[in-house]
Structure formats: C-alpha cells, structure tokens
C-alpha cells in the first residue's frame, strides 16, 4: 500500500518543477530574442550603412547593445525569480492534492487527506481527524496506487513559449523603433572611422603575419579616436598622427626585410627607399588670400617597389590614405568648430589649404612610390592665388588628399578649395592614381597666370576641319536690361564665377 503523503510529496515536487519550468519558459524567448538582436546589431548597423548610407552611431549602437543585453538579463533574472516563486508556491501540499484529486477523480478525498495529513499543517488540523481517517487514507492510497506524477503533469513548455512570443515581438519591435530613431546620417568622421574599421577587418582577414594584425589594431585605434566624443580635434589629430608614425615605423621594418629580398630576387631592379628621407608639406592660408604650398620630398628618393601586387601592401597603402583623409577631416571639423558660423568651405576664407607633403607617403619616405618629381604639381592654397600653379608642392596627382574631396556620402559635395590639381600648360602629367574617390573635381585655370612661365604652344597635330565652315554670329551676350531675377551666388562659388 503506497503512502499517499509520500506520493503527494512527489507530485508536489513534480508540479513545482513543471511550474518553475513553465514560468521560466516565459522568459526564454524574449531573452533569446533580445540577445540575438544585441549581437546582430552591429552587422545590421553595418548593413544599414552599406545599403542605405545611414549609420547607427557607435554610442547609439553601444546603448542599444547594452540595453538589449540588460533586457535579456532582466528577463532571465525575472524569469528565474518568478520561477523560484512558482516553485515554492506550487509545493503547497493541499494545492497539490487538489490538482491530484482532479487528475485521479478522487472527488476531494485526496484534498481532504492532505488537509488532515499535511506534515506542515498545525496540530489543530490533525486533531480534526475523525475515526474514519483510516478509511480515507486507504481510499486515497488506492487512488494513488497507480498514479505517476510525471505522466499526470507533463512538462509542456509550448504554451508558455507561444505566449511569451508576444513579449519577444514587443522587444523586437521596440528595438527596431529605437534603432530607427537612433540612426543618423553619418558625419564625415564617422564615415571615415567606419572605413578604417572595414580596412582593419580586411587586413585581418588577409593578414600574413603579426605585423598585419598590429596594423589592423592601429586602424581600429584610429577609428576609435575619430569617434571618441571626448577627444578634441587636436587630440584626435595627435592620435591619428601617432598611429601614422607607428605605421611608418612598422613599414620601415617591413621594408628593411623586403630590401634584402628585392635585391636577391630582382637583381637590383627595384630601388628601395632608404627610409630616411623626410617629406614635408606646408601650406599656409592667410586671411588675406595669399597662400603657398611647398613640399620637400626629401631627396626625392621614394622607393619604387617591385612588390606592389602584394595584397597586404595595398591594404597598408589604402589604410595610410584613409588615415590621411581622416586627418584632413579632423582639420576641417576643427576649423568648423572654431568658426561655427562659417559655411561649408569656410576654411578657404581663412586661406587654409591642405597641407601638402604631409601625406603618409611623404612622411614615410621610401615606403611609398612617388611617381612625381618634386614640385611638379602646383597646389592652390588660397583664394588669392588659387589659380596660380605653384611649384614645389608635394601633392601627388593621383592621391585623394582631402577628407571629403571625393569620398563623400549622401550629398556631401566636395569643396573646391582642396580639389585643384592641374598642370601647367603644356606640361604632361602622369596617369591619375585615384582610389576610392566618388567625386573628383578638376578646375582649369581661366587664364595663364602672369609670370608663371607658361608659353603658348601651337599644336601642329591638332585636328583640322576638312569642310569649309563659317562661324555663325553669336547672339549678343550682354544686355543692358536687368535680369529677370537676381540670385545671390552661394559663397562657395563666388570665387569661381566671375
């Protein structure tokens, strides 16, 4: 004869376990959804950036990530708490007896037995036992003889999980709404930081050694510095320059190894830079509109490498370019911050020009091929002499030097002040070597500057018309009549349109 109280105890444990599991199951799906959303936030943000050009800022992404993890944690903690409470609550022997009674059809005999035989009940309950209690005990035992708590109270979590899907959906919807509310059009610095991170990832994926990994890490540091709101533009710039210096030193080390290789394999056909040259670019903008740029490329002994095809080097070069862009962007933003009322392109008003010669190629002399001879490319520095080709600039025509000069997103048109690259009349430039530029703005001088040394050259091979023609008289272009409407020329174009 089984002991009904023991069976009820087993049933109580089973019911408590099932109750706790069902209660906890309510929290599982929302927690899983919140965690999955948290860890898919970065890829989703990246996808948003790639596809639609919106960015979930680092801070916002971190906030959302933390929030979702907190929600998941809260759900789990709450689920655990409620499950524990359900476990303790479900262990009440009388309540269990009532459920067992329903399960076995005992017509409240089990319930009555439990009220009178509950070990935790006060003695007053036991004193209510009548002489008929043995009959009740035997009857309950007969009912419970073949009773299996596991079969009577199966662990079915489907209902709990189905119900919790409402909460999970709410979390997902809330996250989506929060993300929509938090996405922004990226600032140039954010775009640049994002690009640096991409590069870091690419370098890591194609890494050929610890040097590449270190480089990727540097890129990430630079990206972090770019997006760190606590840093001033000067500090950011210092960080970037520091990273660039580290990369330069790293490149030198690599070059040192590559030199030996090149000599052995290429028979001296490759002229490696000696690595000690210094490149300087100076550009001073004056408020009076004068500016000059000069670049000394050391001795002009940039190394020409014979291993250009190597993927790692390409990435490194690309990374250096991006760092240069970032540096320029910091300067631009710094200038904007100093003169918040100035319009875009206001840096021109201060006569600032991109600092020639500070490109990473020039800073790390010998590590970057320099297809130009020093001073071959004039650089416009300021509005007064913007059309005057200057000699001695260290800019390279193929490089996208400006921060937003050709690598912009979403309607950020390049400012012309940093985009002038042109050759002297008659001068034959090298091939353009432009990377990652979406917009490249060329501007030709309207007239040959006086004293520039240029001469008019008649091209004997020019195409001539074989059919006689007569120039039709042009319509008079000037009129004394007032224009139909007057519109102010935007400031950025005032120095271009005469």
């Amino acid at each position, binding site marked *: 004869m089984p002991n009904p109280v023991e069976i009820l105890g087993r049933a109580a444990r089973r019911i408590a376990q099932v109750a706790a599991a069902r209660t906890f199951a309510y929290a599982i799906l929302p927690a899983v959804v919140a965690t999955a959303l948290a860890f898919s936030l970065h890829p989703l943000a990246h996808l948003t950036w790639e596809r639609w050009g919106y960015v979930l800022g680092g801070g916002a992404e971190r906030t959302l990530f933390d929030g979702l993890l907190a929600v998941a944690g809260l759900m789990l903690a709450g689920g655990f708490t409620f499950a524990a409470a359900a476990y303790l609550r479900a262990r009440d022997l009388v309540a269990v007896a*009532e459920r067992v009674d329903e399960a076995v059809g005992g*017509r409240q005999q089990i319930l009555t037995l439990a*009220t009178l035989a509950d070990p935790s009940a006060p003695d007053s309950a036991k004193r209510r036992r*009548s002489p008929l209690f043995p009959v009740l005990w035997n*009857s309950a035992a007969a009912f419970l003889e073949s009773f299996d708590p596991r079969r009577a109270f199966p662990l079915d979590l489907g209902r709990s999980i189905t119900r919790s899907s409402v909460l999970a959906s709410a979390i997902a919807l809330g996250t989506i709404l929060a993300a929509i509310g938090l996405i922004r059009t990226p600032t140039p610095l954010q775009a640049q930081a994002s690009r640096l991170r991409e590069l870091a990832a690419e370098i890591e994926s194609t890494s050929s050694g610890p040097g590449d990994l270190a480089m990727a890490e540097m890129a990430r540091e630079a990206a972090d510095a770019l997006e760190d709101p606590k840093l001033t533009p000067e500090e950011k710039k210092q960080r970037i320059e520091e990273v660039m210096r580290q990369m330069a030193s790293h490149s030198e080390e690599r070059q040192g190894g590559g030199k030996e290789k090149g000599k052995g394999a290429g028979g001296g056909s490759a002229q490696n830079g000696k690595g000690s040259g210094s490149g300087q670019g100076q550009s001073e903008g004056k408020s009076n509109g004068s500016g000059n740029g000069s670049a000394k490329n050391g001795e002009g002994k940039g190394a020409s490498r014979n291993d250009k095809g190597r993927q790692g080097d390409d990435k490194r070069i690309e990374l250096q370019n991006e760092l240069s862009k970032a540096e320029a962007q910091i300067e631009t933003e710094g200038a904007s911050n100093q003169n918040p009322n100035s319009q875009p392109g206001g840096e021109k008003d201060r006569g600032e020009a991109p600092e020639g010669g500070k490109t990473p190629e020039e800073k790390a002399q010998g590590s970057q091929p320099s297809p130009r001879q020093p001073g071959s490319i004039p650089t416009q520095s300021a509005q007064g002499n913007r059309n005057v080709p200057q000699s001695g600039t260290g800019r390279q025509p193929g490089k996208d030097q400006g921060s937003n000069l050709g690598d912009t997103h979403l309607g950020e048109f390049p400012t012309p002040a940093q985009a002038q690259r042109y050759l002297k009349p008659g001068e034959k430039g090298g091939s353009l070597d432009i990377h990652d530029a979406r917009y490249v703005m060329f501007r030709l001088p309207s007239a040959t500057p006086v004293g520039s040394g240029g001469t008019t050259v008649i091209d004997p091979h020019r195409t001539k018309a074989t059919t006689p023609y007569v120039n039709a008289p042009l319509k008079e272009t000037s009129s004394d009549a007032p224009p139909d409407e007057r519109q102010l020329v935007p400031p950025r174009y005032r120095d271009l349109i005469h």
Partner: protein
Amino acid sequence: MGAAPQTSPDQRVAEFRDVFKRAEQEVSRVIVGHQEVIRKLLTALFCGGHILIEGVPGLGKTLMCKTAADTLGLSFKRIQFTPDLMPSDIIGTQVLTEHDGRREFQFKPGPIFAHMVLGDEVNRATPKTQSAVLEAMEERQVTVFGVTYKLDPPYIVLATQNPIELEGTYPLPEAQMDRFLFKVIMNPPRPEELREILNRTTGTEVRKPEPIFDPKLAPQAIESLKALVREVMVAEPLERYIIGIVSACTPNTPGAIPEVSQYLRFGPSPRGAQALMLCSKVNALLEGRVSVGYEDIDDAIVPCLRHRLLRNFQAEAENVTTESILEQVRKRLKRPRA
C-alpha cells in the same frame, strides 16, 4: 440487524450504506415514485433534522412516513393540524388520576412523543400550536407544568403543507421554517407511476415493508449511524465553499450575487450552512466516501436552502422562485482553490 459500535470504520460505512439503501427499497415497495423525497426523508433522519413536505393531499405523504417508520422500527404518530388544535393536544397534558385513594396529576404524553411524528397540514394550526411543535423540534424536549420531558431519540418531525386552500391557514413564519432541515416538494405522480399506484392499492395484495431493525434496538442503531454521519470529514476548501454559498445567498453582502440582492429580502441563517454540511456528509457516505466532495454539497443546496430564502415583492411579482435563484448561485459560485 443491530448496530455494532466495535466494528471497523470500513464496516460502519458499509453498514450505513446498506441500511440506507434497504430503507429506500422497503419504502419504495409501498410508495410509488418520490425517490428523491424518500431519500431526503431518510437523510433528514440520519442528519437529526426535520423535514417539511409540501404537496397536495393524496400524494402519499402520510403513508410514506409511516412506511419509513415501520421499516426502521421506529414509533410513529400522526397529528392532523386543525385551527382548533391546542398545544396540549400535541404535547400532552396533566390528567388527574387516582392511585390507592390518592389523587394526583399524571402526565399524559401527547402524540409528539414518538420517534417519527407526522404533522399533517401544519399550516392549518394556529401559531400558538405550531410553536409548541416547533419548540419540541428544536429542543427535543417539552415542558408541561414546569416539568421537562425529553423526547426519545431518534426524533424527527415530518410536517406537511398544502400549497392550495390557503384560506384560513397560518403559513409558517420564516423563523419556524428555518428549523426544518429540508423542504421537499412532492409532485403529482406521472402517468406510469399513477398506474402502478392503482395496481398496488386497488388490488388484493397488501404490501408491507420489511423492518430493518428490531424495534427495541432501532433507536440505538440509528443513533449510531447518525454519529457516523458526523464523523465524515470535510476539507477546509469545501467548508469555504459552503460558507461562500450561504454568503452568496445573503442579499446586500459582499459575496451576494446580483440576483440575490435583487430578489431576496433575507438569506439563510447559519442553520442553512449546518444543513448543507450534514446533508453533504450523508451524500458522501451514500457514495461510500468518508469525506465530502463538491458534488455532495451541490446536491444539497436546493433542498437545504430553498425554504430559508425570503423573497421580496419583486420576486413574487415576477414569479422568481427560490429554486431558480439557488441554481444561479450554484452556477456562478466558483469552487475555492486550495
């Protein structure tokens, strides 16, 4: 068959069921139909209560009570209540007698001194006479000229009421009605039952019930079975269920359902809850259980409470019966969870 107190609890329960079933069968040998009334009569007997039977004349109320008494071996007396019936006619009185040359008053017990008393058409007697009976019902004793006389247990009064011919009657007041454990309605027999009645009563065959108990031992045996009823156990949630029912039937209380507050003036007294509990216990025993279940209570609600609810004018005007109100209570009341 006699009571055997030394028997095991299982045997006592079995004996109770056996006695009850046999009594039902024996009464049914004489009375056609009215199974529910017979059961309630026997239930009231084993609960120690009294029963009010309402029905038109000629339905066999008297025969049913007499047959039950004969079956159980109990003494039976019948009192026909009339407007000129006096309390002394029921209780008994002192009569002057002479013994050995000495005259003295000697108490002459009335018909109330029996185990089973049938008060026929109790609403025809004056309230004074009714009160004399009802006091005896409650106290199980009568006092005559300052002398108290105990009524021998088991004691049960079966009062009948005629729902028609109400002119010149004295309907029982609510306080008196509350003293009856049950109020059962005897409906006219169905055609097939009537046919059986004709066959049994107009032929030569005379059916008599087989006594279950020896008349000398019957009171003790029945008292033993009555004690068994009170030993039946009730779990605390079921006690709360009974309390909930009574509360739900009491108008203008927090537990009352809207129909109760709308149609009732007064609800059941604690006697109603006691009746519910005792009747439930008998129901449980009849099922072979020693603990009460919810179904046992539900089965007892209407007969135990129908005469304890006092309808208001609106209910009478709309012909809302207490039975329908109790049915609503039963449907709406949720069984308490442990």
